């Protein structure tokens, strides 16, 4: 029985370290290769020893697919390809391929150099890993090999995020990665066609939540920024170059324009160019509004937001600064933070996740006295705010996607067990689709009934049509023929054609049966009585009495014989071909009931 097997090595009833192994029609695919931000030892990576048990990695795995550039989805990739030894193809979208190394490099700098970790991947390894990447376009069907094909769909969430359909023959699995079913200010909503996969593997971060309107959070953000600059304070927004930064910039730009504010907004030098470069390059990945506007002007070239110079940080008066990196672990954002932290009028707004060991993480967990390098203590008097602008589908969105794709089964990953349990029940009850939620290391096995395409011969089709029965898509009906398999293809042909094509002679198989009748008459007379009886019962069939005394009904042959031991009994030998199997059975049961009394 063919089956699909799914084993999460990470993200099974868990968030972080996304890594899901899928086995479909003999092909093995790894979906995402992420790291867990909560660990500092080798538990940060998925436990790959369960794959290496199966022999050489490159032989076992047919490909690796990365859904988007976030580290919990791609952070273990250089480790997997350059240190564990996977040397096969890695698929991701073009924007992911462009942005992924920036994040990996950023994380390497924290892990290796700041935390002093050994045995971590190097810059060269990140580059070598990225050289193994095959970039794909949206909706492009990519042949991994002769049998395995993949296709990317738009997922929203972040620039370049994609859902992937993995298909082998008629069996398919869709993996969503992280996705967002509502458009935001710079990205569109996730979309997939009615591809009816055998299995949909979906994230379930907000499995139990119907998220509040994004407008509320945006209003809150603007209010905080506005209040701070009104009272003469400075606002620092540490961001990663791409992603939420662009969304927040558009938000502030619009607000500044509407309120006619004059307070300067700055964006780190070098960063705007980089962001603009990627957004120009990948403009089809943004939302419709931005795409339309882009014809006249670049939405990411702002009127109120100017390039930042390090000297501006000492300027008196209010200002808003977007600076990298987003976790305050190094560079410009950290330098500005050090200058501004001592003033209670100022504010830092953290719009994203911060890894343990970074200043961002420390201030978000409430620390007010930070031990900087060389035993300096920095007292944080400025206000610290956290705003979640993450773009995941909520429960409604997940249900909507399941409805859109119409899968046979659903498997939940990337979420908490309790929340998954709730969503599982909802999916099973409302959509009547079986739903699974394996923990890490647990395998879900789904039997599949693959539909095998069969070609039909023209001759057979013509013969059917000659009977006046035109094929109709909505009314399936039975068609008799011979199924032949040649060169791995199936065809249904007439038996004559099958014999001809295969060069075989026809053999007739006859079923035989003996029926005992009480009759003292001679065999010929018994045969005649049988003939008369059948003639009267089977009016629609051709019943014949042959000169040799035997009787035929279609292909059924009946012959009477007299056993020597009992002259009062006659034996009827009945035989028929497989085509008349029903008729043969009917006749034997009829005759077993005996012949009608002859008029004396």
């Amino acid at each position, binding site marked *: 029985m063919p089956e699909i097997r799914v084993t999460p090595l990470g993200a099974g009833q*868990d*968030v972080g370290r996304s890594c899901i192994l899928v086995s479909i029609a003999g092909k093995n695919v790894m979906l995402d290769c992420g790291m867990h931000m*909560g*660990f*500092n030892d*080798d*538990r940060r990576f998925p*436990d790959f*020893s*369960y794959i290496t048990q199966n*022999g*050489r990695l490159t*032989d076992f795995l047919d490909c690796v697919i990365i859904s988007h550039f*976030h580290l*919990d989805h791609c952070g273990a990739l250089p480790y997997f390809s350059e240190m564990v030894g996977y040397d096969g*193809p890695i698929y991701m979208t073009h924007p992911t391929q462009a942005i992924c190394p920036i994040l990996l*490099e950023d994380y390497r*700098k924290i892990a290796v150099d*700041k*935390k*002093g*970790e050994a045995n971590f991947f190097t*810059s060269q390894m990140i580059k070598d890993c*990225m*050289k193994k990447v095959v970039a794909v376009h949206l909706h492009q069907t990519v042949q991994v*090999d*002769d*049998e395995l094909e993949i296709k990317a769909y738009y997922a929203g969430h972040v620039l370049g995020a994609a859902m992937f359909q993995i298909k082998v023959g008629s069996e398919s699995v869709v993996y969503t990665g*992280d996705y967002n079913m509502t458009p935001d200010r710079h990205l569109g909503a996730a979309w997939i066609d009615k591809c009816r996969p055998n299995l949909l593997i979906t994230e379930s*971060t*907000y499995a139990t*939540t119907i*998220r509040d309107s994004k407008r509320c959070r945006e209003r809150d953000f603007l209010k905080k920024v506005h209040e701070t600059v009104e009272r003469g304070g400075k606002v620092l927004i540490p961001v*990663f170059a791409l992603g939420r930064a662009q969304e927040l910039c558009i938000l502030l730009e619009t607000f500044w324009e509407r309120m006619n504010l004059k307070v300067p907004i700055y964006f780190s030098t*070098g960063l705007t160019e*980089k962001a603009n470069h990627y957004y120009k390059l990948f403009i089809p990945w943004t939302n419709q509004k931005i795409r339309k506007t882009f014809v006249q002007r670049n939405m990411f070239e702002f009127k109120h937001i100017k390039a930042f110079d390090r000297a501006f940080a000492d300027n008196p008066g209010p200002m808003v600064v977007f600076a990298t990196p987003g976790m305050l672990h*190094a*560079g*410009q954002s950290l*330098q500005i933070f*050090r200058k501004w932290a001592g003033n209670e009028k100022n504010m830092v707004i953290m719009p994203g996740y911060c890894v*343990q*060991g970074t200043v961002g*993480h420390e201030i978000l967990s409430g620390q007010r006295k930070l*031990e900087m*390098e*060389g035993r300096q203590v920095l007292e944080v008097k400025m206000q610290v705010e956290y705003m*979640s602008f*993450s773009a*995941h589908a909520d429960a409604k969105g997940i249900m909507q996607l399941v409805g859109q794709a119409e899968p046979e089964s659903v498997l939940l990953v*990337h979420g*908490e*067990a309790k*929340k998954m*349990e709730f969503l599982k029940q909802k999916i099973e009850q409302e959509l009547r689709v079986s739903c699974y939620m394996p*923990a*890490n*290391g*647990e*395998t879900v096995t789904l039997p599949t009934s693959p539909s095998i395409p069969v070609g039909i011969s023209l001759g057979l089709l013509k013969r059917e049509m000659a009977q006046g029965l035109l094929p109709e898509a909505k009314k399936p009906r039975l068609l008799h023929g011979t199924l032949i398999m040649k060169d791995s293809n199936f065809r249904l042909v007439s038996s004559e054609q099958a014999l001809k094509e295969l060069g075989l002679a026809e053999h007739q198989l006859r079923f035989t049966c003996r029926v005992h009748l009480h009759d003292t008459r001679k065999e010929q007379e018994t045969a005649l009585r049988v003939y008369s009886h059948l003639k009267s019962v089977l009016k629609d069939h051709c019943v014949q009495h042959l000169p040799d005394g035997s009787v035929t009904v279609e292909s059924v042959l009946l012959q009477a014989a007299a056993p020597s031991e009992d002259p009062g009994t006659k034996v009827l030998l009945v035989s028929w071909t497989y085509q008349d199997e029903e008729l043969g059975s009917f006749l034997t049961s009829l005759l077993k009931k005996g012949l009608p009394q002859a008029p004396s």
Partner: protein
Amino acid sequence: MDPECAQLLPALCAVLVDPRQPVADDTCLEKLLDWFKTVTEGDIFFPVGSLNLTPCKKKVWELLGEERSSRGTPGAVPLVTPGLGRPHRVQCRAAAGAPLPGGAAVPCAESPGPEFWGPLLLTPPGRNLRSPGKLLPVSSGAVDTIFSLQGDSSLFVASAASQLLVHVLALSMQGGAEGQPCLPGGDWPACAQRIMDHVEESLCSAATPKVTQALNVLTTTFGRCQSPWTEALWVRLSPRVACLLERDPIPAAHSFVDLLLCVARSPVFSSSDGSLWETVVRALSCLGPTHMGPLALGILKLEHCPQALRTQAFQVLLQPLACVLKATVQAPGPPGLLDGTADDATTVDTLLASKSSCAGLLCRTLAHLEELQPLPQRPSPWPQASLLGATVTVLRLCDGSAAPASSVGGHLCGTLAGCVRVQRAALDFLGTLSQGTGPQELVTQALAVLLECLESPGSSPTVLKKAFQATLRWLLSSPKTPGCSDLGPLIPQFLRELFPVLQKRLCHPCWEVRDSALEFLTQLSRHWGGQADFRCALLASEVPELALQLLQDPESYVRASAVTAMGQLSSQGLHAPTSPEHAEARQSLFPELLHILSVDSEGFPRRAVMQVFTEWLRDGHADAARDMEQFVATVLQVASRDLDWEVRAQGLELALVFLGQTLGPPRTHCPYAVALPEVAPAQPLTEALRALCHVGLFDFAFCALFDCDRPVAQKSCDLLLFLRDKIASYSSLREARGGPNTASAEATLPRWRAGEQAQPPGDQEPEAVLAMLRSLDLEGLRSTLAESSDHVEKSPQSLLQDMLATGGFLQGDEADCY
């Protein structure tokens, strides 16, 4: 355990067992268990017992019970199993009330696990428990639980259960009731008996997962335990194992191969153990091609093994390549692969079955041979020529240029045409083959096919990268002919053909190819920069010019590689031809690279520039040596402003080189090094110090000492310590303390601390600097900096505080995975 943690622990336990409080995530629980283990290092029993905090102990068990019920798995207890590879989350589905080893009563019907499993799981294998005898005899309930856990739906649990079983088996064999080791051949202890019965039963099972479990348990046992009893175990179980070969298909073939190899490697078994080799011989002929290869490779890697078996294994390994060669060779080919190798029907079938099976078999074969080639125990004679011929043929089949000699060959042509996977594997192996000795024509053959590969317009970026790597290996290992031109007769011609191809690849639309081409160029010029033939061919081509243009490449990786390549070429005077028309191009590369260092928006090219400058300074490159002080001053000024701390760190590296050149090299701290007499510095100390001040080295170093990035501060600290040690050897300055400059230098300290430059570079007086050096506690700073940035975060107090603080905050909308 420190008092702070001891104070926090009861409160934490209270939070964790409170059903109204949200449970901390798994990550924190795992870290908590990690910490429990560390605080009781050396104590085999579960640490809570030794905390001497009875209320805590109880609460932790309750917590574990809570965790279990929240996961909806009966009796699921998360435990960490160090010593068994990486930690696994073990869900012990122990039946409530199951009798425990040593007759211990289950302390609580709801949580039977930890009291029993803890000691077993927390003890690294091979380490005796405090009193192993106490664990014996193992009651049936406990071992049955482990048996059932072997079939758990979780891979982690199933694997941990198998390992635990091996552990129990080893323990029971280590000591009976009197603590005496069991004698092979004697009666097996009851517990071991039960486990072996179970393994035997599983081996006979018709269900493949059961057979796999049994084989894995045996593999782990023979891998870990080398006591004489393992031999007795093999004697008892080997007939059952051998019986698996009679089944069709052979179940769990992969695990079967692993077991045979593990037994063969075990030092307990003498190489004359006939039954083992008989089974291996049979396996080599019964297994399918997928498993035959790994078995054959494993055999050939053994140190002791019958020669006939080695021969058979090598034949098996060579079979697929022999088939390929036979299918394509018109005339009798080189000896080695085809001799005495009848076509193996299974191999041919696999090659012909489908594209993926053919590619799979060839890739595995090539990878196995690649692994075998450099080993000292590889078969001798090694058929270098035939292997090379076969690899070249495989590559030709992939690029469609091979001529088939049979119907099989024709089929292979169709199957392998354009198969990137096989091409990559073949190029890897071809590169490895360069390490073997062979006649000149072999080199020609290999280089010809590599050139074809590099030239082919259809080659994918990954194939081109491997082709460049293989070419480099062949070129660098090519035989040199004495008396001829310096690179032998073959290479100059090849280089003349190679450079036009390299030019083409430097203009490739994919950045991956441009980058691989530049990396190749860098490596080749690093090794051959001094060779006349190479210099001549390179300068006659447009390669240096193209590499120079790539300094403006849109892709930062390529810009960085171009910087490295140009830095290398420039070091050897190869960055532009010497002809008058190239006079402009021959100008110094320094301003160009300095511009990149100042303005490039990405870190990679800037870092590459700093590495090149450091190399130049170290090697006395003309651009650096012309006015060394000016060179260093300019570079340090730009590097000190860089936002990428790796650039600043590299700046300090350059400063250290300059220091070494000015004051003499750093003293070696190796106790075994020959103590050389101190090299006299190039100039008097005051002058040297003035030079250092002039280039702005002190400004940079003192600012960097308070850099918010730890590695920069560390490096600066090392540099200043080195400087202080150097100066200490000069008695004339040793006593110079205080003075008017000290105060001014100390006054500038806070400004450096704030990350500002104290005064225009070069304005310090050497005396002021010396005073500053004396006033700083550099040793203290160094030990502070040695701690990682997140040492506070990683502390157990921080963990306990985090877990305490988490309560009540893990609400729905908070999850943010950015």
